[in-house]
């Protein structure tokens, strides 16, 4: 089990693509693991044959623990269990398996195992032949057996047609709210069309509410903590405990920004959100304030030489913050594309560690949910997080006149060990200049 991040101490085997005795090639995906943040395919490190699987599907292994061995040429395949276990069942503990699971202390112990295996072979229990007779665990076949397929724990996967997904994304409709009418609950274009009327209208006008779905019947149940949920809990508790938070709220005028955004959409035909502009604005403002782009340490405060913005993304399993690197050096359109690609990966739990680690500042935006303002909890080792509310038309007084302007509230949570009230306020003043004069963001 490889260590895929600083916080990782153990990982879970989601599924084996190969079974014992299968040939594997260097670089070929052999199994999928769940780490604290993402699901990853593990690739074979050498050509060979897959030996006994030590950690079955659904089981945990500590970092550094052995999952299986790849046997080189000449090394004998392990005999499979007498009755090959179904994929989700724990692997039977057999003496040989246990011995294999321990890292071979030296060449001698491995030779001893080999000898044992060759004796077994000579009695006619030829591994491959037995394996061929065992029940097939072909994943494509499992798929066709309807409801018996166990869902991976956590969020349930939507079955939906490609067209339905495309339409939903274009209309801004979440598939979570769509009831599928196709085979095995597949969401098809007609289902999206049915619901899109209401939702699209809701998206256009903040006052309109999305249609209320019939809630599921109440029941008491325990949801086992996923590795991701454990990590979120641990890290955020670590944050509010030792970090003295304070909060600064500002109300920005985003009338010009929304107008520039619309123009860019019209000209470029691109998908652009206010948030994409905010990522660039936050990054550019950080250039002026290296004391915000900083991390607390027991001996020193580190000011970072690069600006990497973490963007909080909600996934069915929980929060993750993919990172836009050097966001101060990227155009808004570039940022928009990158955010979209990373968010998609995050939703599929396919983010790689270097795609969600190393942020120097984080933003969280609940504007799309109609939240006016909120406070975020600092994502260590960042010193601040900016919580962005919804941009909406509000009545304000400018030069003694009552006018309607697009306004947006942001709240910065600061680590008081690194940032003082005035330092934070100065940063928000700079940020305001970028946000309220948005041409600075696009030139």
């Amino acid at each position: 089990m490889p260590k895929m991040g600083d916080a990782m101490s153990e990982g879970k085997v989601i599924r084996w693509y190969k079974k014992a005795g299968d040939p594997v090639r260097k670089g070929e995906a052999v199994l999928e693991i769940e780490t604290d943040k993402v699901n990853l395919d593990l690739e074979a490190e050498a050509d060979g044959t897959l030996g006994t699987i030590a950690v079955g599907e659904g089981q945990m292994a500590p970092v550094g623990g052995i999952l299986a061995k790849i046997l080189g040429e000449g090394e004998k395949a392990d005999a499979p269990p007498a009755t090959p276990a179904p994929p989700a069942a724990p692997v039977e503990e057999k003496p040989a398996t246990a011995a294999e699971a321990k890292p071979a202390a030296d060449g001698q112990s491995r030779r001893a195992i080999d000898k044992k295996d060759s004796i077994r072979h000579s009695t006619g229990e030829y591994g491959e032949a037995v394996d061929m007779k065992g029940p097939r665990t072909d994943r494509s076949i499992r798929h066709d057996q309807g409801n018996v397929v166990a869902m991976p724990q956590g969020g349930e996967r939507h079955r939906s047609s490609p067209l339905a997904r495309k339409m939903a994304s274009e209309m801004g409709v979440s598939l979570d709210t769509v009831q599928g009418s196709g085979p095995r609950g597949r969401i098809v274009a007609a289902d999206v069309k049915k619901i899109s009327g209401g939702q699209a209208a809701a998206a256009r006008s903040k006052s309109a509410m999305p249609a209320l779905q019939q809630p599921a019947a109440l029941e008491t149940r325990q949801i086992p903590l996923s590795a991701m949920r454990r990590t979120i809990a641990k890290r955020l508790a670590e944050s509010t405990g030792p970090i003295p938070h304070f909060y600064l709220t500002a109300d920005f005028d985003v009338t010009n920004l929304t107008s520039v955004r619309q123009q860019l959409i019209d000209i470029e035909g691109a998908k652009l959100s206010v948030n994409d502009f905010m990522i660039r604005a936050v990054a550019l403002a950080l250039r002026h304030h290296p004391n915000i782009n900083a991390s607390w340490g027991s001996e020193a405060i580190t000011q970072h030489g690069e600006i990497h913005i973490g963007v909080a993304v909600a996934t069915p399993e929980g929060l993750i913050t993919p990172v836009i690197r050097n966001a101060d050096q990227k155009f808004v359109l570039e940022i928009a594309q990158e955010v979209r690609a990373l968010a998609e990966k995050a939703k599929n739990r396919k983010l790689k560690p270097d795609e969600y680690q190393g942020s120097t500042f984080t933003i969280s935006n609940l504007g799309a949910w109609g939240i006016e303002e909120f406070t975020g909890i600092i994502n260590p080792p960042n010193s601040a997080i900016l919580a962005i509310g919804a941009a909406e038309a509000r009545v304000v007084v400018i030069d003694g006149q009552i006018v309607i302007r697009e306004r947006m509230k942001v709240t910065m949570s600061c680590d008081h060990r690194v940032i003082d009230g005035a330092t934070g306020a100065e940063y928000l003043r700079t940020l305001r200049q970028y946000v309220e004069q948005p041409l600075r963001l696009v030139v």
Partner: protein
Amino acid sequence: MAEKSYRDAIREAMMEEMDRDPNVLIMGEDIGVYEGTFRITAGMLKKYGPRRVIDTPIAEAGMVGTAVGMAMLGLRPIVEMMTVNFAIVAADQILNHAAKVRYFSGGQVDVPLVIRGPQGAGVQLSAQHSQTFESFYAHFPGIHVVTPGTPADAKGLLKTAIRGKDPVMFLESAALYGMKGEVPDDPDFTVPFGKSRVAREGSDVTIVSFSRMMQLSLTVADKLSKEEGIECEVIDLRTLRPLDMEPAYASVAKTHRAIVVQEQWKPFGAGAEIAASITETMFDELDAPVFRVTGEDVPMPYARNLELLATPHEEHIVRAVKRVMYRS
């Protein structure tokens, strides 16, 4: 424009090209004195004589090998296979020689050879004589595969085949020989290879097909339109190599659903290639998987009732159309 049968359109194409070019000749089993098992070559021996209408022994490998040599040296031979099933005997000549000579000669030598004959089920010829071979030949680079579905296409595509410089497998549908349709009289009327056509416009489901199954698809499309108000768009591929998928893609962009109809067995057939191409190219437009309607995976039975059960039927296409519309 006159109404002609598929059979007469093929004969007319050959005779017009023999009139036009003295290098065109035809050879095959029982095509001369007997005037052809399916009467395609009726009257040709009398008109062109035995040097250009050559009765051969029952020796397909020899016929095709001879024709490859003729073509390499500048003649334009047409080889009639009594049925395309018999061309398997000559597969080495077709696939390893005709299809490879230009490549091996570095582009110096062409093989303008047409191998044509009937294929397919529907006329009670049993397991060895009812097969269809389009995917078998279309798998190989270096050879064109033509599958006409109308009398006009039979004539226009055959003329393109005879005038071209490449080896062509011209796969006629035995069951369509008697089918009549409008055929242009112009002796220079040709239909280019690699140009699929929209045989019928519709907005609900795209049916991609060729040859006889394209005709069956048209029948079903009319029936579905009248009885259920479902409008199918039927794409006639005409040639499988070169394969023009553009009209099918454009159609799927409109209908978001497609089925493929082929007479062949399902595994590894032309329908698999077509369905995969649609999925690769038009994935985001699809609202349903691309389903295949195919023959049953058995050797073709001789008995009429069993032969009917083993070949795609109107009802199979109706079911597939409703399945992709989520109406079944």
